[in-house]
């Protein structure tokens, strides 16, 4: 039997990686679209997750996670690309000053009722990443004969990362909306690409570290597009005013 400390640390660190992805999506979507529907989506995701875990227990490892990764990843990638290009266009037009005057209709969710975009994004992020935490807990805990310790470590990782997400929320809220939309769009595009391809059976050369590589690649691309957009706009302005 593996030592309690080793099982706790291994499960905690592995769960932390998944929890960071979960909290990043929830905080990013909440700050961009508003918190009410985002938290409703997260709560629904946790509720479904709790039912799945309660019903399946240790048989959780039998769930085929790949198809879920493909569906959730592809949806996040397609939606993320929309915010990615809107963010590029808006930062190129407005810089880091955010929007001047009226807010575009699609930038904030509806003032009344449920904002389904925020709900679905948050729900999918929590359900997929929560399921991955549960799988880590069951795999590590069952193989080491320390399921109780593994459950505690997995829950601790989600609580700690969730608390960090909550603590940095005031800072995130101060980021101009156009930049925030670009940042969240970049993250959704990167996570979506990673999950969809992993679900299809791709072996990423550097495993989870390739999420950072994808983020870097997309950030560099966004900066290049912003530069190009600005140059094109000033060239067009010169033609109009001449």
């Amino acid at each position, binding site marked *: 039997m593996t030592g309690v400390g080793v099982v706790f640390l291994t499960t905690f660190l592995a769960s932390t990686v998944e929890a960071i992805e979960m909290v990043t999506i929830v905080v990013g979507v909440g700050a961009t679209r508003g918190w009410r529907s985002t938290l409703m989506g997260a709560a629904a995701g946790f509720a479904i997750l709790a039912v799945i875990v309660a019903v399946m227990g240790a048989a959780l490892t039998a769930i085929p996670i790949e198809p879920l990764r493909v569906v959730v990843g592809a949806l996040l990638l397609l939606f993320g*690309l929309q915010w990615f290009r809107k963010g590029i266009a808006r930062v190129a037009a407005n810089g880091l000053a955010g929007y001047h005057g009226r807010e575009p209709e699609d930038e904030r969710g509806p003032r009344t009722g449920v904002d389904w975009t925020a709900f679905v994004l948050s729900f999918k992020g929590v359900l997929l990443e929560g399921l991955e935490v549960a799988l880590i807990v069951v795999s590590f805990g069952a193989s080491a004969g320390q399921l109780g310790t593994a459950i505690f470590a997995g829950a601790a990782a989600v609580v700690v990362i969730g608390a960090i997400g909550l603590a940095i929320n005031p800072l995130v809220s101060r980021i101009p909306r156009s930049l925030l939309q670009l940042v969240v769009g970049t993250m959704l595009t990167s996570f979506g690409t990673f999950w969809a391809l992993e679900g*299809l059976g791709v072996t990423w050369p550097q495993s989870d570290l390739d999420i950072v590589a994808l983020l870097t690649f997309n950030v560099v*691309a966004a900066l290049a*597009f912003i530069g190009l957009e600005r140059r094109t706009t000033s060239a067009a302005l010169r033609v109009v005013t001449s």
Partner: protein
Amino acid sequence: MTVVRWLAAVGRFFYSFVVGDDWMVAAVILLALGITALLIANGIDAWWLVPPLAVVMTGVALWRRSASDQHKETQRMELK
């Protein structure tokens, strides 16, 4: 009738969620995911296809939007 209206609303939501304002980006990305699946089935670890294509399609979508904006601006100037 209410069910039909509800289904139409759900359909509109998912169309706007997945496709958004540029259908070409969604079509190319879905095609690229399909090609990646085929390559993997044939033993090729094609992690390199979708990430650059997503960036290229972002450039194409931005260019299409910019060209359309410029066309509208030219028409507006001509009307003046």
